[in-house]
């Protein structure tokens, strides 16, 4: 027997090695909770309170509903509610005290005035106030057939119709020169770049509205990376490299973007932040028409696809807008909206990469520069058209 056996060569079973640090952690936490060795740092400080109002809805005339979440580290007790600087009757479910990350609903019977702003403040037991300002008080949509139909139709008008219209240019585009086809691809890339930037900025804006504990802004970046990575891995399979595959990926990315657009529109109409003017509908049609062109562009090479294919692609890109308007009007959450938009942005980025590669490969085959003046003009035109048509829909 060798006397120089070190401790490290002793036969300690693996499970002990895995569990020992955990056991130590448990012991450390227990000791901390029992003995409170860092008592130096605790003083007579009031709790750190943070209440986030997730949504304010007006379910009926004379009714206001607040959905709250405790986004802070300490429990918060709701003591009183102020509506327009007047203490008002209210009920809170499930209870007055919200633990960390707990949700509650406050119902206030208040004669709100249609179309006028309203400021609601929640006063906690320590006297802190958390305010939510409603820009315009409007009756919130209910999930009944009429509402679903109306918002669904809105989604179709904003999503499916423009994409389908854009695809109608396919026969014309098939007739043109090779170099013009590539210019159209460049236009598609321009459009996608605009959509990427637009989606990311919208996502960040929404993420900022979410409670800090959900870390909305970092999640946007992680969402982009996640969907980008996922789609790149999926795209490595041969099927995805075909013209139809690329068109489908573009449609998917645009679909996710339109989901986010639907969320924004649905929420805007439901909260009275926007009224449906013909201006808005025309605007969306023009703005999204180029998306149809972009989806059809990769299909210009190879066999002419069946009509069914175009319809399915249009639905893939446009139908999510319907889902978006439904969710946006009935159950909007800034965090989830930001998340979906970030996934969409990642998808758009991946598609931009694919279409770019297509363009470069084509140029190489014909011994022409990828970034020719014509292609560059196409790229710039894509961005410019999207920017100018956005004037009709941004507010």
């Amino acid at each position, binding site marked *: 027997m060798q006397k120089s056996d070190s401790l490290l060569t002793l036969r300690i079973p693996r499970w002990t090695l895995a569990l020992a640090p955990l056991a130590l952690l448990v012991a450390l936490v227990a000791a901390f909770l029992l003995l409170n060795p860092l008592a130096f740092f605790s003083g007579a400080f009031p709790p750190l309170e943070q209440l986030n109002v997730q949504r304010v809805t007006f379910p009926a005339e004379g009714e206001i509903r607040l959905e709250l979440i405790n986004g802070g580290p300490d429990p918060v007790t709701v003591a*009183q509610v102020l509506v327009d*600087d007047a*203490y008002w009757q209210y009920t809170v479910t499930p209870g007055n005290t919200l633990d960390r990350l707990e949700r509650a609903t406050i119902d206030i019977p208040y004669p709100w005035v249609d179309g006028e702003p309203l400021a609601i403040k929640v*006063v906690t*037991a320590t006297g802190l106030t958390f305010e939510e300002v409603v820009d315009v008080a409007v009756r919130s949509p209910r999930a009944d057939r009429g509402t679903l139909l109306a918002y669904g139709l809105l989604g179709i008008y904003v999503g499916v119709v423009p994409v389908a219209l854009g695809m109608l240019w396919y026969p014309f585009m098939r007739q043109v020169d090779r170099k013009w086809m590539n210019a159209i691809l460049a236009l598609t890339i321009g459009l996608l770049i605009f959509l990427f930037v637009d989606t990311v900025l919208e996502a960040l804006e929404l993420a900022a509205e979410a409670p800090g504990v959900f870390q909305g802004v970092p999640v946007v970046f992680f969402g982009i990376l996640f969907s980008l990575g996922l789609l790149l891995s999926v795209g490595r399979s041969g099927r995805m490299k075909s013209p139809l595959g690329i068109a489908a990926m573009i449609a998917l990315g645009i679909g996710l973007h339109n989901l986010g657009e639907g969320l924004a529109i649905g929420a805007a109409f439901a909260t009275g932040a926007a009224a449906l003017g013909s201006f808005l509908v025309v605007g969306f049609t023009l703005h999204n028409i180029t998306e149809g062109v972009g989806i059809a562009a990769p299909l210009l090479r190879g066999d002419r696809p069946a009509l069914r294919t175009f319809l399915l692609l249009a639905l893939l890109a446009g139908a999510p807008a319907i889902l978006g308007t439904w969710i946006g009007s009935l159950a909007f959450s800034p965090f989830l909206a930001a998340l979906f938009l970030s996934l969409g942005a990642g998808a758009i980025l991946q598609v931009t990469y694919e279409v770019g590669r297509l363009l470069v490969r084509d140029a190489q085959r014909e011994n022409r520069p990828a970034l020719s003046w014509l292609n560059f003009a196409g790229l710039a035109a894509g961005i410019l058209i999207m920017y100018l048509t956005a004037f009709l829909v941004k507010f």
Partner: protein
Amino acid sequence: MTVGQVDHQRNGFHPLDLLYDFDYGTVTEENGRTVREWNIVAVDQEVEIAPGVYFPAWVYGSPTSAASRKQGRVVGQVPGPTLRCVEGELLRIHFANASLHPHTLHFHGIHSARMDGAPGIGRGMIGPGESFTYEFEARPFGCHLYHCHAVPLKRHIHKGLYGAFIIDPDPERQSGEAQKAARSRNHQYAENKAVNEMVIVMNGFDTNFDGDNEVYAANSIAFGYVQDPIPVRRDQLQRLYLVNVTEFDPINSLHIHGNFFDYYDHGTTLEPTLKTVDTIMQCQAQRGILEFSFADFEPGLYMFHAHQSEFAELGWMSFFEVLP
């Protein structure tokens, strides 16, 4: 309206205690002169000012106040105890600071600079654990107030260090009609017993320290006299000593429903300074005496509140309950 009930037991004082209590201190004779003494202590105390809303207040307390006598120990209250005396008496206020911060006692009255309770003058600010006796003659007669004058001034006032200070007129110094009025105002005379005397200090609380009051009240508790309306007998003259100590807002006011009153600005006259009005306004530290009667009125609830509707909806709303 607020939701729920304030736990007055936990606070140590009830709004109706604050309304009716006059702290007369201890009276002795010195060289043929009446000397009246009080022991006032400043403490840090959490007060529930609206159901479920707790404010970290700085308050005054006195062993001879109603709240303290009920509890058998010195209880801090906001507004502080109403100190009442008679003009010409020598007043000694023994102030002890049991708070964690320096404070003073500044009286609105006629006295020397040394006894003024202003920082840097005379004894200046009284530190934690220290004490000082303020001594001066009770003059002029009227409805006055006292408050802390330590710096920063806003915070020391809005956190609750204030109270009413009443000097009764001495009828021996008056004659004719004026003497009759003085006898009614002086607590040592029988005519005073026929009058229902009340004290209301209009105040507010900035619970989130943003420079704006979230709660307004008559005697600290939001909607306090809605939960417990003030009983009023039709066979009595009503006399209300009203003081405004609201911080942050330039003015406060009082309006009575269904009735009018005579107003004695500062209470320093025996004739009303304003006759037959139903709304008066007061800036911070302005005060006065309201006299009115509900004789021959229908019994019922008569509202009175600040006529800044914002203050009324934030807690400064009350009821007189006229009894049959």
